[in-house]
Every structure is written in structure tokens, then in C-alpha cells.
């Protein structure tokens, strides 16, 4: 998704000299061409995230369209108060890009697992929170947040839905993409882990169980209209995310159900339970180890379908 993001940033910077990209000394091999092409629109601010958000706020107050980039929890948790007080309270056009959703950097350990970011970033008033599932979504999200006059959080993933060309390319902030239609159950997912949802749905097709898969790339504002449709047309709803269940995307879906006053006959939130993962491994390995991989979705829906 990094490639799609930088492709979009080059286009944005080329069209608007007020677009500024700031990195917290990360993006080796990614930003060199951008820096060469737009030397006055690129800043490597060093490993200093509090200052990064502060400087970004100063620039945005002056009318710049600012993108800040780092990995894991560094552009969010390390500088959360700056995001809250400096960026959100002043309603600035600052776009925070995190590379490393969930267990993208699984082998590097818990410091690099971005697992509470959805909950924390969506708790800040006025924010927009996006966790794309596909390359196209990552590209269009980057383009769209530049125009969106609020603090946006874009959570990029190492994994992604493969071969997703043509799937839900009509990107709109706050409007989920239906990646696969289905009539029995619905799986709502966000981030690269949506690939597990889609794969599970194709497996279930073989058992004549039809599942709809939604990429809920925008977690805030959540797509209540689509959730309403899913509730009306499914026997059960599963939410799937590579992040903490507490306050995460599934919680946002459940909040929407409460607002709608309408609930699916069955609902299950799959995500990280209230603990840190202390073993390391690939994204695939860690999903399996905590019960959020394809197999667990298939087993759950088979169980629902049998009862």
C-alpha cells in the first residue's frame, strides 16, 4: 500500500505546491524520488514525533495541506496530545499516515504492533479514520484525504486483498466497498486482513453458504446505511480487524447498530482480545495464533449455519 500512497502523493504535490510531506525519519527507499522532485515540499524532521505534529500544525494553520508519515505507533501514540490539542482542536488539514497496521511488522515485537490505533484515533473529535483493504483504496484514500478538511488518519497495511482490481473502485470516504456479494451472512472487515474474510467467503461458497464481504475502509465516519443493509439481509454479522476489539472497527459497527436501533440476528467481533501479543512472527502466523485468520471465520459461520 505504500507504493499506492506515494503515487498519490506525487500527483497531489505536483498539482498543489501547498502539499507538504513530513516524515519522522522513516520511508527509506520510498520517499527519495518525492524529495528530489519536490524539495520544498518534503521534510525529514528526524525522530521527533511531538515536534513533527507541532510543526505540521503550524504549517497547516498557515494553509498548507500536510501529510505526516511514520510507522507503527510513532505517528499516533507518541504524539497523541499534539494530535489532540494542536491538530484536532484547531480543526487542521493534517493527514497522518501510519505504515504498519496491526501485525504488519509482526516479527519486530509489540512496540511495532499498531493495535490500539483505530480505537484511539477515532476517539478524537472530528477525526476521519481509514484503514484500506486494497491498493486502490489506499490510493484513493490518499487522494481524498488531501481535500478533506479534518485530521485524517490513514492506516496502511503490509498485507492487502490480492487481485482486487475492479473490486469497489468507486472510493468515497465514509462509504464501505462491497467486495463480494452474498445472501446468508456478512463479514465486515478493514485493513489487509480483509483478505482472510474474502478467502473465508469463497471457501464457504463451496458449502453453499453465501457470504457478503464488506471492506469498511472508513471506520469514522462509519457507513450506517450499508450496515443497515447488511443487517436487513443477513442471518449473522461478523466484524474482522487486526486490532483491539475494544473501541475498534467492530465497536464502531456495533455503535451504528445501537444508533439504528437495529441488530443482526447474530453478531461476533473478531479482533485482538484485551492483551498484547508477546510472541513474534509473520502477519499470517500471528493472525492464526490469536484466532482471527480465515479458518476461525469459516468455523464460526459453519457453526452458526448448523444451529
Amino acid at each position, binding site marked *: 500500500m505504500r507504493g499506492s500512497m506515494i503515487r498519490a502523493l506525487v500527483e497531489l504535490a505536483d498539482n498543489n505546491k501547498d502539499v*507538504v510531506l513530513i516524515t519522522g525519519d522513516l520511508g527509506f527507499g520510498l520517499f527519495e524520488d518525492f524529495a528530489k522532485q519536490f524539495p*520544498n515540499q518534503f521534510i525529514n*524532521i*528526524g525522530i*521527533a514525533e*511531538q*515536534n513533527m*505534529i*507541532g*510543526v*505540521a*500544525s*503550524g*504549517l*497547516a*494553520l*498557515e*494553509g*498548507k495541506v500536510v501529510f505526516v508519515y511514520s510507522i507503527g505507533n510513532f505517528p499516533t501514540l507518541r504524539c497523541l*496530545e*499534539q494530535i489532540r*490539542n*494542536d491538530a484536532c*482542536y*484547531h480543526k487542521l488539514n493534517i493527514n497522518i499516515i501510519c505504515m504498519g497496521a496491526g501485525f504488519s511488522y509482526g516479527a519486530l515485537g509489540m512496540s511495532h504492533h499498531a493495535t490500539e490505533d483505530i480505537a484511539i484515533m477515532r476517539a478524537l473529535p472530528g477525526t476521519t479514520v481509514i484503514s484500506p483493504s486494497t491498493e486502490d483504496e489506499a490510493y484513493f484514500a490518499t487522494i481524498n484525504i488531501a481535500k478533506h478538511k479534518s485530521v485524517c488518519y490513514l492506516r496502511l497495511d503490509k498485507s492487502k486483498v490480492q487481485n482486487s482490481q475492479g473490486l469497489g473502485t468507486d472510493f468515497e470516504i465514509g462509504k464501505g466497498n462491497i467486495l463480494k456479494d452474498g445472501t446468508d451472512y456478512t463479514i465486515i472487515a478493514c485493513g489487509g486482513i480483509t483478505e482472510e474474510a474474502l478467502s473465508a467467503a469463497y471457501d464457504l461458497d463451496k458449502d453453499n453458504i453465501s457470504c457478503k464481504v464488506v471492506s469498511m475502509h472508513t471506520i469514522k465516519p462509519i457507513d450506517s446505511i450499508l450496515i443497515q443493509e447488511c443487517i436487513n439481509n443477513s442471518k449473522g454479522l461478523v466484524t474482522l480487524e487486526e486490532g483491539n476489539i475494544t473501541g475498534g472497527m467492530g465497536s464502531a459497527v456495533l455503535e451504528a447498530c445501537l444508533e439504528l436501533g437495529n441488530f443482526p440476528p447474530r453478531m461476533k467481533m473478531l479482533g485482538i482480545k484485551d492483551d498484547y501479543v508477546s510472541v513474534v512472527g509473520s502477519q499470517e502466523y500471528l493472525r492464526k495464533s490469536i484466532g482471527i485468520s480465515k479458518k476461525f471465520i469459516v468455523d464460526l459461520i459453519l457453526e452458526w449455519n448448523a444451529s
Partner: protein
Amino acid sequence: MGSIDTKKLARAVRLNVVRMVNKGESSHIGSVLSIVDILAVLYGRVMNYDINNPKLEARDRFILSKGHAGAGVYATLAEVGFFDKSELLDHCQDGSKFSGHVSHKGISGVEFSTGALGHGLPVAAGMALRAKLDDLDYRVFTILGDGELDEGSNWEAFMFSAHRNLNNLCVVIDRNSLQSMDTTENTLALEPLAEKIRSFGWHVQELDGHSHAALEDALIKHSKKPLCIIANTVKGKGVSYMENSIEWHYKTPKDSRFDQAISELGKL
């Protein structure tokens, strides 16, 4: 701007803030009185601004990083004409926009809201950087408390500003040597402060933070490097029983204490 009598301005601001804190039953009066002379010189003699066009692109920008002294900014802005002085007594009242820590929302002339410490300098650096990127001439001023320098974010911004040679940025450190519970030196020693900041690549000047002539002379000059003025100040300046007292970081002057403060400040 330019021809204001800063002594008169400072006296009026001091009287206002004591009345505001008294009526609002709020705190931090010692911290406010510490910076009144700096504010008076900035708004009276140094900064370029237009009260009728607060967002004028060419204006100089000001951020109060020690947001708890916000009453001083409100009173200064009212005195120079950004809004009516009668609004000041809303300070800290129910439903008021004049919060104890400085807020920009709905208040003409306030550039930026602060309150948590260590936020002002990075934002000021961002504003100064924009002038460099777009070839504009404005300057950016910010006042930091000395206790506030405990926050690491300031030192990130000190490094950054020197690295980008933001010589349109001026930091005034309110060096009253007191913080919330004790002296700065007993809490987390800052000295040798000037040497530290100089070693970060700044031009540093120490002066009497209550001398209007010294402040004006230092603030008006353009430096080749980012400029840091260490203004040696007295917390609670102007009210005898508040001077150099940590107590008045927290207490509200009431009854006879209030009368005494007004009387002493009126004679300044």
C-alpha cells in the same frame, strides 16, 4: 502598534488580570504577572498586526506556550483594541470562551490555543517555516515558561529550528525560576540554560524581563539565527505579597488581598 506607551499598557493589563482572576476565582495570577511586560512590549512596540484584520498575511504571529497565563494575552489584546475590554470579566465564567488556558475560539487576535506545556514552540516553528517556504517576511514570537522547558518537545523544536535556520522565530523564556512545586533548579535543573540553548544553534540574549527598554531593544532586532531571549522575571511582579511566591500559582486574590493588589498595581 508602534507608538503605544508600554508602561501604561502593562499597568492596565496587570489591573485587568487581577480583576479577571478575582471575578473568575481562577488561578495562575503569579505566572500572568510574570509576563505582562513582555506582552506589553511585543504588542506595544515590536509586533506588526492590524486589529481590524487579525488574519492579515503579513502580520507577525504570537503564541503563548505557557497557556496558563492566558489572562495576560486576553487583557493585552483587549487593551490594544482587538475586542472590547468589557468582555474580559467573562474570564472563567460559566459558558465563557475566555478559558483559564488561552483559547483562540471566537477570540480575535489569539493565534493558537495552548494549555498542555511544550506545545507552543513546535507550532511556532511550523509557522516560521511556512514564511521561509513561501518567501514571506513575518516573524513568529512565542513565550515559554522556564518550568515548561522540562518538556522534551521543546528541545526537539530547538534542534529543528536551528537546523532549518528559522531566524524569523523568536522565543522568549519567562525565567522566573519557579515552577509548580519548587524552584526550577531544585526540580530539574535548567542551568546553564543560555549555554544549552546556544549550543543548540540559537542566538541567546539574557536580560531583565521587566525592563521595557531592554526588551524592545532585543526583540526588535533581526538575528541571523533563531533568537532566544531569556527574560529574567519575578513571578507575581507588581504585587508585593505575590512576588516570588509559588502560592500565587494557585490562589485567587480576594477581599483585602484583592484590594491591596489593585492599590499596589495602580501606583506602578
